[in-house]
């Protein structure tokens, strides 16, 4: 397989990410990895639910006084929108529009950075209130769960930025199409996890 072969919109395959053997393997392997990630987050969610609002007596923080919904709402909207922009980037990939894809991935990165900035602000705010990582079982479980998600956002951002830069002058090939495709799957998965975080941690935390 010649990975550097140039295609045109007329000859570009319907599923460029799954033409080569490497692409097929990446696709399967990546879904297996996402299964593993689901199990990882399940263990963190289970831990959080078990330890929610538990702390040394006399110094508890509780979810319904700690969390602020407007901030979480803005973060949710930003991440949800970034999921749409990365879908739109993949639409451009299918149509063999390289510049379109790079542009929309760059917009995805900007939205991801905005989300990350808000999360850092939020964590910083909690630490100033005295709700630090080691403060209680609840705080450790909270920071581990939401922080692991934040770490995934960082990894996803670094991944997409590197793809954009590394392939800027290369254009499309069957070599980099699977890379872009899996990166976009990863970004959607981050959003899937966030849907459960904003529901289980923040919304269910505020109702009690």
């Amino acid at each position, binding site marked *: *397989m010649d990975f550097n072969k140039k295609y045109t919109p007329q000859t570009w395959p319907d599923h460029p990410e799954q033409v080569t053997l490497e692409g097929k393997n990446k696709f399967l392997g990546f879904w297996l990895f*996402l299964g593993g990630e689901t199990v990882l987050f399940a263990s963190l969610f*289970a831990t959080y639910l078990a330890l929610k609002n538990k702390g040394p007596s006399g110094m508890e923080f509780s979810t319904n006084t700690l969390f602020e919904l407007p901030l979480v*709402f803005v973060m949710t*909207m930003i991440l949800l929108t970034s999921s749409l922009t990365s879908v739109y980037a993949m639409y451009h990939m299918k149509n063999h529009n390289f510049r379109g894809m790079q542009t929309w991935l760059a917009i995805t990165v900007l939205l991801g950075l905005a989300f990350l900035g808000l999360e850092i602000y939020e964590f910083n705010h909690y630490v100033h209130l005295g709700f630090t990582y080691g403060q209680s079982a609840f705080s450790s479980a909270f920071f581990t769960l939401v922080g692991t998600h934040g770490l995934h956002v960082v990894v996803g951002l670094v991944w997409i930025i590197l793809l954009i830069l590394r392939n800027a002058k290369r254009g499309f090939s069957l070599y980099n199409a699977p890379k872009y495709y899996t990166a976009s799957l990863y970004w*959607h998965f981050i959003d899937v996890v966030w849907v459960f975080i904003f529901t289980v941690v923040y919304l269910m935390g505020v109702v009690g």
Partner: protein
Amino acid sequence: MSHDAQVYVRSQTEFEYIKQKRKKDMRNQVTSFAIMIFLTLIAFTAVAAGFSVYLIVPVILLLAAVQVVLQLYYFMHMSEENHQVAAFFLYSAVMLAFTFVLTFLTIVWWG
């Protein structure tokens, strides 16, 4: 090279057809995005409105599940063919996930 891929050049009709099909897929994705935004709004509004806990919790969990299904099937393309193994991996993980939550909660809350 002996391993060169067969390059298939589409006819103009096929090309127009596939472009239309992709547009339709993209429109479906925008629709599911609109539904996701709407479901998120309902969830936040329900909590802000302060209904009973026993009403809100099942409702927002259901809304989250619907959103995740939309995300998986439309944004992550699981509705396309050729995703059986992907679905197998994911649903096995989801089964484990439910077991984890159930076990942890029964041990800590009723243990």
